[in-house]
């Protein structure tokens, strides 16, 4: 595997848009070519080498590229945007749009992620060891479909509008989530292992939202039954393979199933943990 290990040597004073920093486009590039990559710094074009220094090393025979970014990237937007393969590891926090529109590969963020994490993504896995901002896995304004595939695993908390207009895939929030998770959701699954903010799944057409605490559903959701969904253990196993163990959540948990939202057809489901 080709490992590109870069460190942030100069913290940008203004927003830096770095969609060129994605592992699948750096398979053949030399270090000097990486340093010469154009990034948008405010309204100017800067070279990546003005901010990053590092090395390239080969480890093992496995194919692909692992891009490691070390430092505080909170002012750097669009890291890994549109990536289709490879691995991106951010040893720190990152800014807006990380992994947006990605179709494959894997992103690991050791710190916090900014807003629009994995917006419009269609495949791959994003793992955030800290917390994520608003609009994780959501759609941009004016678009009708958010995340359509892949998985976003957030170990900490998530902000508002998580999974807005989501059309497929999985979002797991191990901590708390602010208001309007799954707003106008069309399909896919959101799991909130902490406390959820108000208006869970409002406007949802289809899809599944699983919530451990925070049972503040709109009156346009109707209770169907209390049961043990057969996919629950499978889902837990899958989440564990992605490096997150849902501590303290009973494997044999019962869920109250609500269908809704009635205003939009009532084919979505919200599963509220009955025995947390």
């Amino acid at each position, binding site marked *: 595997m080709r490992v590109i290990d870069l460190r942030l040597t100069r913290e940008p*004073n*203004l*927003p830096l848009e770095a969609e060129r920093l994605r592992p699948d486009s750096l398979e053949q590039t030399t270090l000097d070519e990486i340093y010469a990559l154009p990034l*948008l*710094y*405010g*309204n*100017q074009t800067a070279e990546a080498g003005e901010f990053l220094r590092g090395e390239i090393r080969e480890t093992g025979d496995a194919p692909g590229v692992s891009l490691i970014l070390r430092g505080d990237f909170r*002012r750097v937007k669009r890291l890994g945007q549109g990536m289709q393969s490879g691995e991106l590891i951010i040893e720190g926090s990152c800014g*807006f749009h990380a992994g947006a529109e990605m179709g494959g590969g894997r992103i690991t963020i050791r710190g916090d992620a900014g*807003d*629009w994490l994995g917006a419009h993504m269609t495949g791959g896995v994003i793992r955030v060891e800290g917390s994520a901002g*608003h*609009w994780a896995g959501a759609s*941009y*304004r*004016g678009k009708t479909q958010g995340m359509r595939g892949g998985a976003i695993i957030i170990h900490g908390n998530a902000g508002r509008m998580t999974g807005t207009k989501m059309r497929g895939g999985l979002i797991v929030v191990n901590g708390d989530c602010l*208001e*309007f998770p799954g*707003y106008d959701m069309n399909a896919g699954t959101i799991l909130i292992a902490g406390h959820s903010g*108000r*208006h869970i799944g*409002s406007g949802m057409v289809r899809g599944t939202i699983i919530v451990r605490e925070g049972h503040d559903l*709109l*009156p*346009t959701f*109707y*209770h169907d039954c209390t049961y043990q969904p057969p996919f629950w253990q499978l889902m837990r196993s899958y989440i564990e393979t992605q490096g997150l163990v849902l501590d303290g959540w009973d494997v044999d948990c019962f869920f109250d199933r609500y269908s809704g939202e*009635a*205003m939009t057809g009532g084919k979505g489901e919200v599963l509220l943990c009955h025995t947390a």
Partner: protein
Amino acid sequence: MTVTVHKDVVCTFCGALCDDLEMHVEDNRVIDVKNVCGIGRSKALHGDNDKPECRVYGMPATLERAYDAAAEILSQAKSPLVYGFSSTVAEANRVGVELAEILRAGLDNCSSYCHGPGVLARQHVGLPTCTLGEAKNRADLVVFWGANPMESHMRHFSRYSVQAKGMYTPLGRKDRKLVVVDVRPTPSSKNADLFFQVIPGSDYEIATVLRALVCELPLPTLTDDSLVGGVPLSRWRELVGLLRECKYGVVFFGIGLTQSQGKDLNVEQLIRLVSDCNRYTRVYAMPMRGHANVNGNNQVFVWQTGYPLAISFNRGYPRFNPGEFSVIDMLNRGDVDAALIVATDPAAHLPHTAVEGLKKIPTIVLDPVNSLTTAWADVVIPVATSGLSADGTYYRMDNVPIRLRKILDCEWPADLEVLQRIKERVLHAKNH
């Protein structure tokens, strides 16, 4: 001295743009105004009096020197912001957009923190709306949701909505039902036939329940005594009855709806409610726009860029993302290194952290009067007051463009001219 009487002058205080003012002018000063509210009177009498000094870095300067300094600051900036425009004419808005594009700057207006969420909601679900003239002539049900026009749009009741006598409402107030939804009693609610005092932040839930009632969906978890937003369901049924049975209803929504928890989603749900009501009768929605031409900002920005607010030209073409490119967020994060402020007073309007962000960077302000921002801005350019000493076009809250006339002479240029002069210099600096 001769007193000249100007009739049908447009008031430029709020988005209602009353266009029946009578101004008495003597010696190039307004000495009396008729057909006007208290705030409009104050603006008309004093709006052209308290001009700031033309300054560059605190020192008195000529206009030419101020233009040069402004162009130098803006053309050297890597992430400039062009912001404001809520109290200037649409023509100046257009030049402002052009300047932002040349500078590859961020571009935002005051709707970003007032009725912007309503504009975003309109993008998603449309807006069944009417003009204020239709409301005056036809509306037999008027609902104010999160708005208090008695204090914010003082002549709205008498000219357009509640007391106005129209073609099909000849008795004015007696021909209408007035409903107010707000978080506290207000002067507007005291006049209401029905007043719903709701819990702050519950608007989305209320609108959802109202939609369910209008659409006759079951609400098994609620009884008539259940509280929705702090009000029993039985009372909401009463409102739904009015909405379904009226001949012509208009729901005016204010910042109480657009800036409470849920923001644009509140407005989306309200608009959907209004659409649902149109299965039974005619009901329309209209935002109670605040600043006189803040609607014009959205109109011009959409016309010029495709987006109503929170725009960035930093890639050379317009991109839109509220939260990323909106003025408060950009200033809070320190994403801006110079600012051009036109016809607004951010030091008075924005949160403290955003103002502190603005104070750290070179700031150019165009303002017809002394304001909290002109007190510390690096370049201060006094301008003529739109509607008094500058003409142009404003957009009323119902999207009707209204032409302003110039009735006073002013030694200072209009915003439009200043922006054009700065634009010429920026173009020269960038070798266009």
